[in-house]
């Protein structure tokens, strides 16, 4: 006992805290050791007390590694910075290049926005006299065609077998191809087939090449204006496509002429027309007499319906009224004219009531020299229209044929026919085809393909391998317009530059350079000594136009006819003999007449593989991803056709089967079918979307007839779901179930007379009492105005917004489920009866309400109001309850129901992502999105202003929709600045807020639509039940 005590004493500490410590109890010692076991300084192995720190870390590391082994992270993608940064590129700062774009014959001066060397957006060149800052939907979309996955990547050769069908495609070098082509050309009998050439340089090169090789040049356009040009030649001896000087016209009469949609230069024409649209004295007036309901017809002040074959009769009726009844012109005594009119007598009576002729004629007389008469897509109505213009003294004033006429629209079907004949007869051995696609778009496409097979060598130069390229021996890739040099003379004397904005993506060569290269190899004439397209273009601007090259590149346009365009010209003498061409041919009316029309989105189908254009809702039908047979409500009732029902359409022995769409406003004996669809070799997006109806057109006397074709229809038993983005089209009246919708103030219309009496006519303002004075905005307060009187519904803003804001396309299936993503939509409503309605258009984007219903209901505050009055959406905070959309009275919010690149990979294929705007977040699946007022542009301008220590100038910020608008209907600005254009506009009593009675206090204000007519459709007759809706609702979604 003592020994133990002693031994303990020896070992025990001098100072002790407890008896256990003094006794050196082993349990206590173990505890004492572990007291600070979590100290990082402790390094023991800890074999007894669980895991030590290092062991723990090792195990944790290993288990982490093991855990992450199963889940593969997305592969690392290296971002390589510039080793030597090009001096013009600053990362994060956009560069802008003036350039131009040609669409068919329509020309645009554009400004291309590039980021880090990639074109991402296109805007109009505001100093361009043709389109100004406005663009068409297609012009906006052509930026995406640059990144079309279906583009050709290098020269190829199709190895044809004996039957002349391709059995293999091999890659070749340009040297080899040029050599073979040059060798072949030396054999002679060469033809070049192109569309209308509006580039003076291309024209010069083609002419030189033709001279050097003895080639014949054939010009052919998929969407032909040949009747317009031919009629000019017959009437005035000049094969010209006059410019429509709509800014000078006080009265426009369009007979089956969609000058706002697809005829000639619609963007310029809308812009010019809108200049005279200011309500008040001198406001212009538009009378439309048509068979389909076109975009132009939807903007008419007065509209009549006729059969397509009655166009000439209507114009003859007016000639009769003016010459015979009113004896107004020097032609009044011309007996030959009388004889022709006599022939038309019955036709005239059948087309329109007599009172209508008298009324229109009176109006035309009242606007002599200030009116414009436009004929349809056939020679005789064009001749009659020309005659009326001559009688009325419009020629030289509103019809500009000499000072600055259109340079395009020269293509003729006769030319293609001649080429086909030449090939069939063996007179042509070699064909060079540039960027036209007759194997798809020609009326006689099978004839063309058969003829092409007889050629010894066919060379296709184009951007994409297509229906025509398939049958050619050599397929040489052409530059995208954004990749190469060029120039454009869209209208005489207006020269614009086309400059590359990106290094060619692929191994492509411009058409001009291809011709030069071949000429060099074969030593064909003067072209063999030429340098490149670039030198031609530069030369033209420097030596021929005497401009500073750098200045031309900066401005993008040299306008040599500014003064001449504004001035009037003398009238051309009219050749009365031409009227014989329009003499009545006793062809009986068919029971039903078919009109094949180019659609506003797809036109000739050349850009069909751009998903934006496929998903572009037609401004009238609001249908996308299909061409439909449009029939009138009455016809649908008579023939028992339902929305979406497949109908077989037969013209002669040719037929197609298409889904029907019931379209109010159509003439009951007319059916319409859009062209541009049914591509077979365009790429993943466009292939087999819709049907190609072009072969239903009739070739007569070499020309193509696309309207008034006698047709038979047979409804089938099958149905197709249509991707319709707007199923209901009435603002008041009764639904199909007979329920009164009540009065809704959506689009306010007033006649000019009502407006003159009261500028705020027909606007009902609710007296709103609020307990809250509201938030006071001290800095900027952003707002927007939309003038419904200027908006034509062309929907260019829709694509502009899509391009600027990275809005996903979702495909037909999801559009038909209502999942389209547009931030701005253009609503189209019908007023009046389904048979003869007026149409109104209203672009609806987020209204950025001061009292935003969406903001209060979001549980996570993902949508909040900024102190500058915008309703901001915070994507990364959004959990996707969608309550905001339910509470939004405007229904402008769009939800990402899916990860669309995953669900519809063909619409988002590489390299289309290169177009994405790096300033705008690409939204994830499951989040809500909506218009931001282009917040990135606001911030960019504010940053710039801050650097320069100033406030943002008025007009410095342009939203994408605003800058795209051809008629400047949209104005964005600071409501807190009393001097801003916006504030001044909103002082006009014509402005109202959409659903302002809800006290949402929207930042977007609409101006009422003023119709220059006597009585509004909404007031003239009680609302009838809209029959069409019965079918629309059914077919709009699942049948």
């Amino acid at each position, binding site marked *: 006992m003592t020994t133990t005590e002693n031994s303990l004493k020896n070992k025990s500490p001098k100072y002790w805290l407890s008896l256990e410590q003094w006794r050196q109890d082993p349990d206590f010692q173990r505890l004492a050791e572990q007291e600070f076991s979590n100290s990082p300084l402790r390094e023991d192995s800890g074999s007894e007390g669980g895991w030590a720190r290092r062991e723990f870390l090792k195990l944790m590391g290993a288990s982490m590694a093991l855990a992450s082994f199963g889940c593969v992270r997305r592969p690392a993608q290296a971002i390589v910075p510039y080793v030597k940064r090009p001096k013009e590129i600053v990362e994060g700062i956009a560069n802008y290049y003036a350039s131009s774009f040609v669409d068919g014959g329509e020309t645009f001066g554009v400004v291309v926005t590039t980021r880090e060397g990639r074109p991402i957006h296109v805007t109009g060149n505001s100093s361009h006299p043709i389109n100004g800052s406005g663009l068409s939907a297609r012009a906006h979309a052509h930026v995406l065609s640059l990144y079309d996955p279906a583009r050709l990547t290098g020269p190829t050769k199709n190895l044809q077998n004996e039957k002349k069908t391709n059995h293999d495609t091999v890659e070749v070098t340009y040297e080899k191809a040029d050599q073979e082509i040059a060798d072949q050309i030396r054999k002679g009998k060469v033809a070049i087939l192109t569309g209308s050439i509006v580039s003076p340089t291309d024209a010069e090169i083609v002419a030189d090449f033709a001279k050097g090789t003895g080639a014949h040049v054939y010009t052919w356009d998929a969407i032909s204006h040949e009747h317009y040009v031919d009629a000019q030649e017959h009437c005035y001896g000049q094969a010209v496509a006059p410019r429509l000087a709509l800014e000078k016209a006080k009265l426009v009469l369009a007979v089956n002429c969609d000058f706002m949609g697809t005829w000639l230069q619609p963007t310029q024409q809308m812009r010019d027309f809108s200049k005279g649209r200011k309500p008040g004295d001198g406001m212009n007036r538009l009378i439309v007499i048509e068979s389909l309901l076109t975009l132009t017809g939807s903007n008419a002040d007065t509209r009549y319906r006729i059969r397509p074959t009655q166009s000439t009769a209507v114009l003859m009726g007016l000639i009769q009224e003016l010459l015979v009844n009113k004896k107004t012109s020097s032609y009044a005594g011309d007996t030959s004219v009388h004889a022709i009119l006599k022939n038309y007598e019955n036709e005239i009576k059948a087309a329109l009531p007599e009172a209508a002729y008298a009324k229109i004629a009176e109006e035309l007389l009242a606007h002599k020299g200030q009116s414009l008469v436009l004929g349809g897509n056939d020679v005789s109505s064009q001749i009659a229209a020309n005659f009326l213009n001559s009688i009325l003294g419009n020629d030289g004033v509103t019809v500009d044929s000499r000072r600055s006429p259109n340079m395009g629209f020269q293509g003729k079907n006769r030319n293609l026919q001649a080429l086909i004949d030449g090939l069939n007869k063996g007179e042509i051995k070699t064909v060079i085809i540039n960027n036209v696609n007759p194997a798809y778009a020609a009326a006689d496409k099978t004839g063309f393909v058969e003829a092409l097979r007889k050629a010894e060598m066919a060379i296709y130069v184009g951007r994409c391998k297509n229906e025509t390229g398939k049958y050619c021996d050599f397929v040489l890739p052409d530059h995208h317009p954004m990749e190469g040099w060029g120039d454009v003379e869209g209208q005489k004397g207006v020269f614009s530059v086309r400059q590359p904005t990106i290094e060619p993506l692929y191994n492509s060569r411009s058409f001009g350079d291809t011709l030069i290269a071949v000429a060099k190899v074969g030593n064909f004439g003067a072209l063999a000594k030429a340098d490149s397209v670039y030198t031609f273009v530069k030369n033209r601007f420097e030596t021929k136009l005497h401009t500073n090259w750098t200045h031309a590149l900066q401005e993008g346009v040299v306008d040599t006819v500014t003064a001449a365009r504004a001035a009037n010209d003398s009238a051309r003498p009219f050749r009365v003999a031409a009227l014989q061409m329009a003499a009545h041919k006793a062809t009986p009316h068919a029971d039903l007449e078919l009109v094949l029309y180019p659609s506003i989105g797809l036109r000739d189908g050349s850009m069909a593989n751009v998903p934006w254009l496929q998903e572009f809702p037609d401004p009238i039908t609001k249908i996308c991803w299909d061409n439909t047979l449009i029939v009138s409500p009455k016809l649908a009732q008579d023939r028992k056709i339902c929305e979406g029902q497949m109908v077989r359409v037969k013209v002669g022995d040719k037929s197609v089967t298409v889904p029907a769409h019931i379209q109010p406003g159509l003439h009951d004996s007319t059916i319409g079918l859009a062209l541009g669809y049914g591509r077979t070799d365009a790429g993943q997006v466009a292939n087999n979307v819709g049907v190609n109806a072009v072969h239903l057109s009739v070739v007569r006397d070499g020309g193509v007839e696309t309207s008034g074709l006698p047709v038979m229809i047979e409804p089938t038993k099958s149905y197709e779901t249509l991707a319709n983005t707007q199923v209901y089209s009435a603002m008041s009246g009764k639904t199909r179930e007979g329920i009164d919708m009540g009065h809704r103030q959506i689009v306010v219309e007033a006649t000019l007379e009502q407006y003159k009496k009261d500028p705020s006519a027909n606007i009902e303002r609710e007296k709103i009492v609020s307990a809250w004075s509201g938030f006071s905005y001290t800095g900027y307060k952003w707002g927007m105005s939309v003038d419904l009187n200027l908006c034509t519904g062309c929907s260019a803003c829709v694509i502009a917004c899509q391009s600027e804001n990275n809005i996903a396309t979702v495909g037909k299936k*999801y559009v038909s489920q209502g999942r389209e993503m547009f931030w701005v939509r253009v609503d189209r*409503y019908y007023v009046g009866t389904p048979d003869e309605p007026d149409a109104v258009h209203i672009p609806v984007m987020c209204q950025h309400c001061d009292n935003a219903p969406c903001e209060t209901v979001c*549980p996570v505050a993902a949508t909040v109001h900024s102190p500058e009055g915008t309703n901001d959406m915070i994507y990364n*905070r959004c959990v996707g309850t*969608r309550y905001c959309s339910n*509470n939004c009275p405007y229904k402008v919010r769009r939800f*990402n129901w899916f990860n669309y690149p995953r*669900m519809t990979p063909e619409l988002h294929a590489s390299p289309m992502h290169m177009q994405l705007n790096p300033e705008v977040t690409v939204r994830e699946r499951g989040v809500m999105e909506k218009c931001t007022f282009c917040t990135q542009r606001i911030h960019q301008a504010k940053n710039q202003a801050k650097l320069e220590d100033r406030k943002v100038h008025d007009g410095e910020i342009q939203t994408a929709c605003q800058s795209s608008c051809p008629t400047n209907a949209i104005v964005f600005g600071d409501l807190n600045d009393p001097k801003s254009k916006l504030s001044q506009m909103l002082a006009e009593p014509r402005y109202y807020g959409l659903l302002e009675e809800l006290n949402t206090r929207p930042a977007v204000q609409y101006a009422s639509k003023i119709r220059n007519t006597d009585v509004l459709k909404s007031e003239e007759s009680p609302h009838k039940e809209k029959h069409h809706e019965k079918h629309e609702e059914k077919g709009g979604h699942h049948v």
Partner: protein
Amino acid sequence: MIARQPLVLGNKSLKDVTDDICRLVETWPGGKYYAALLSAKGLFLFYLCIQGMIVAFGMGMQGISHPVMWGTDIITFVFWIGIGHAGTLISAILFLFRQKWRTAIARSAEAMTVFAVMTAGLFPILHTGRPWLAYWLLPYPNQRGPLWVNFRSPLVWDVFAVSTYATVSMVFWYIGLVPDLATIRDRAKNIWRKRIYGALSLGWRGTARNWNHYEMVYMLLAGLSTPLVLSVHSIVSFDFAVAQLPGWHTTIFPPYFVAGAIFSGFGMVVTLMCIMREVIPSFKDYVTLHHMENMNKIIMTTSMMVGYAYASEFFVAWYSGNPIEQFIFVNRAFGPFGWSYWIMVTCNVFIPQLFWFKKIRSTIVPMFIISIFVNIGMWFERFVIVVTSLHRDFLPSSWGMWHPTLYDTGAIFGSFGMFFFIFLIYVRLLPVISIAEVKPVLNVGKSGAHHG
């Protein structure tokens, strides 16, 4: 004086009660039970697949789209939340009013509440676009600013209301279970059984002190739950009433929703009890026709209350003079979804009127059929509110339809799979009738029973 109907039939002794009720927990189930369990489980697994696909690919798998952004998930959420109300009402309010007939059905009604809220609670989470972030709806300290939820949003109120409701119902149910769990523990022969039920019974000894505390807590919880009966569905109704959408923006919604919830809840209790009586015949003595009749009376009363609400909505729409409001209501009854309105009215207002006949309200087969109609009708009530209001609102350009997909049907029926799966498990693990509460209402030992 008319003799009160006995609450338990069959002259049971106290031991009989314990034996009858515990038998379910203490014996192996038969084939019928397994068949029922497997089918419920199959449906539940199908439900998991459906919801898994939706989480994997997106909410677009369901039929909701622009402009009907809410659909099956929200409808079924409100439906299940409503179902739960009867449980709380029976256990809390009827308890406070000393309605002794509640004893036999209270336990299962409370269980139904808990399971219905569990089923319901999944829907708002899974209906979001990014369910993995749904926890952002909770206000919790965070490193994002801190960024709080938007307290003005009814959806946040919903989160509070439903989570409170779920917690309180669960605690209430559990506290009520404690004495019975102790009974099972005491009867258990297997050691694990003893331990598990022992742990669950929280050391219940059945002492006077135990009982004293128990009764106190139970009453307090009953008092706490009572306002919840009114508040939860009022707040759920705010999801709609606070919005400015015509058809939603209605002040009558809170009472209307509460009445509807009680109505649907009793409907579901009757459904379950009818099944239980058939499956476990010995329970016929506890859940007597008298009980069923009482519940049917409540169903009939609440049916007239919702009927009144439907009528008053139309009246207010007409009286408001607001054309869009008027349109929405006429469109509800006569628009493209008019059939759903008439299903609702028929099932909720007309069919329950059959309970005016004593014969019908005290016969199992008709009352079972009617209770099914009530369930259907109440699902359609929420459908009518959600879908018909959204599909045609202010701007006709945005009008659209709602087309259900497989994923909608799957979500509705699958949720029943989940509910019944849990319910069937409960039936075999916990006493489905409160032993402790039934015993006091027996006539055993009460002299008055034989002489009075």
